């Protein structure tokens, strides 16, 4: 369908309509006959006040201008209603152009009014505008700027986002070029970016780089820029975008920092573990050394024991009483040495975890009788009296007889040597509910309060009036405590200086039926 047209007289101020085409008839819903001879202003929507005040404002003046200058004049698109072939009224957008028509002399005689339906056009334009708006918003929100780089001139033209991102003024943007951009790139990244640009230009290939740039105000940003080659009228250009990654980079840096911390922690943990293993190895080799040295010491001590024993026990002829006395001192001293070696070995076994107790049900009364009997000689030498109180019923404990024997013996030995001659030692065994308590009380020199904590520490020795005379390895009580601990028991100490000390061993008991069974067999 042709555009609706209408021809009117230019010279006539009323602009009398001279001719109307069919399309125009349809558009105005008025038959041709009724239009011709009428004034233009009476038939077009000019009668509509809104139309007159907006789109057709000063239409008369504009038309005069068309007639005078011979230049066309176009109205802005306006809304109108048309009735389609289906008889339905449609809302449409129209745009009217007034074209001057000249006669042979060049004078404008008539004006042709051509009206288009611009509905689709407007729609498309509006859509385009929306898309553009959205794109712009997206670019802005995403901190994305766009640029065009002209290879021949080196010029980089950026959009508003790019200008904002790079803190550029319109003036500085007008001359912005590749050299300026590369200048702003961080020195560490510059060579890489430069090479990348050169390669992209040389190969007309995609360009993509991530780098740090320093802006005019001295601040630094992380950017990702990406462009594609595009030939515009034989001129090589790159069109691309630039994204501000600073925030992401900050996050990445934080993640990297966290990772580094993690790595450091792991390394520290590894070092610590290694150090621990080294220390354990040192400790192990120390314990092994102690064990080996002790074994080595046992052999000569054993030889001394055999040879002195041969003399004392009459294997090589008789000796005088004085000789026997002297040799007995030597023999006893050697015995003490063997005992210390044994204790060091036991302690080394505790330390290396090799001391394993093999518990059986033991009546602690029997064990106590055995220990006190073994100590008779030592008690006599110190002129002590020992009393042993045991209950009239069994005190069954799960114990390794030989080790528990050593533990009690060590505590009793301490009581003996740290009590001045003619002292009293009282050993009492009591049942207390599910456990039993063995107390060893002496009338000795006592232990200072500040020394109590040192008591069970390996190789620690306490100074008191009898410590030099008593000798000792500093192992006895340590070993006793370890043995008691391995039996699931505890040791408590109470002491008064000059009055005496009480060691109380507490051990869990097992039920009587078990001990009855065991004692029945033995």
């Amino acid at each position, binding site marked *: 369908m042709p555009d609706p047209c209408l021809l009117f007289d230019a010279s006539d101020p009323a602009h009398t309509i001279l001719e109307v085409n069919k399309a125009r008839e349809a558009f105005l819903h008025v038959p041709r006959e009724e239009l011709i001879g009428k004034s233009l202003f009476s038939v077009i929507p000019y009668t509509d006040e809104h139309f007159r005040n907006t789109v057709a404002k000063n239409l008369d003046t504009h038309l005069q201008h068309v007639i005078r200058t011979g230049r066309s004049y176009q109205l802005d698109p306006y809304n109108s209603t048309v009735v389609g072939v289906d008889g339905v009224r449609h809302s449409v957008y129209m745009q009217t152009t007034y074209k001057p028509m000249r006669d042979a002399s060049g004078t404008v005689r008539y004006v042709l009014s051509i009206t288009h339906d611009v509905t689709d056009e407007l729609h498309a334009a509006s859509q385009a505008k929306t898309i553009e708006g959205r794109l712009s918003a997206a670019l802005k929100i995403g901190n994305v700027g766009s640029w065009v780089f002209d290879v021949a001139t080196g010029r980089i033209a950026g959009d508003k986002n790019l200008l904002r991102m790079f803190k550029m003024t319109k003036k500085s943007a007008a001359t912005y070029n590749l050299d300026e951009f590369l200048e702003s790139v961080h020195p560490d990244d510059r060579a890489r970016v430069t090479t990348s640009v050169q390669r992209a230009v040389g190969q007309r290939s995609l360009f993509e780089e991530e780098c740090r740039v320093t802006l005019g105000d001295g601040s630094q940003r992380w950017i990702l820029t990406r462009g594609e080659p595009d030939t515009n009228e034989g001129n090589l250009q790159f069109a691309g975008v630039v994204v501000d990654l600073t925030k992401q980079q900050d996050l990445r840096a934080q993640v990297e920092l966290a990772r580094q911390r993690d790595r450091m922690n792991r390394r520290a943990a590894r070092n610590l573990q290694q150090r621990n293993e080294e220390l354990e190895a040192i400790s192990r080799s120390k314990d092994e050394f102690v064990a080996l040295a002790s*074994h080595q010491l*046992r*052999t000569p*001590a*054993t*030889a001394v*024991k*055999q*040879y002195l*024993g*041969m003399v004392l*026990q*009459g*294997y*090589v002829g008789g000796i005088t009483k004085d000789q026997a006395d002297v040799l007995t001192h030597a023999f006893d001293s050697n015995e003490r040495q*063997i005992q210390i*070696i*044994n204790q060091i*070995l036991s302690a080394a076994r505790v330390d290396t975890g090799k001391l*394993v107790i093999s518990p059986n049900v033991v009546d602690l009364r029997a064990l106590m009788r055995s220990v006190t009997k073994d100590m008779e000689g030592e008690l006599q030498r110190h002129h002590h009296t020992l009393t042993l109180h045991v209950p009239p019923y069994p005190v069954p404990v799960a114990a390794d007889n030989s080790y528990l024997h050593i533990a009690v013996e060590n505590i009793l030995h301490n009581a003996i040597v740290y009590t001045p001659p003619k002292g009293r030692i009282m050993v009492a065994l009591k049942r207390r509910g599910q456990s039993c308590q063995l107390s060893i009380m002496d009338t000795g020199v006592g232990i200072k309060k500040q020394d109590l904590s040192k008591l069970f520490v390996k190789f620690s020795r306490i100074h008191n009036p009898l410590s030099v005379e008593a000798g000792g390895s500093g192992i006895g009580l340590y070993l006793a405590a370890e043995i008691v601990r391995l039996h699931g028991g505890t040791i408590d100490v109470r002491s008064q200086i000059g009055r005496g000390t009480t060691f109380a061993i507490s051990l869990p008991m097992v039920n009587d039926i078990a001990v009855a069974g065991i004692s029945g067999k033995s």
Partner: protein
Amino acid sequence: MVNMSDKNLQVLIVEDEQLLNEAYARVLTAAHIALQRAYNGKEALELLKKHKPDIILLDLRMPVMDGIEFLKKLKPKETCPTVKIIVFSNYDDQREIDEAFSLGAMHYMLKAWATPDELVKLIREVDSTVQPVG
């Protein structure tokens, strides 16, 4: 001194320490116990080819051939079930002792434990026990 004459009892001492070997020999001789002396397992095996004692006093840690190796070679349960073996050591290593027992040893003694009298007493006691068969 445990002074009891027992001409029939024969002991093989296997001990690498010269001083201890000497000491045990003196003690046993004084107690009228017949003896042979070896300084390692290999020497002991040689002696055993000619003569079987009643008791072997066997040290465990020795150069050339140690006590465990000796027992493995000798296989006392098969070759000489009537010979009683006392192992003695200053390394009271339970695993070593267990192994010696599984290989046919009958008794264990910590060297540093015994005085001469106790050693003689132990030998006589072991001699008087009946070796379990099998």
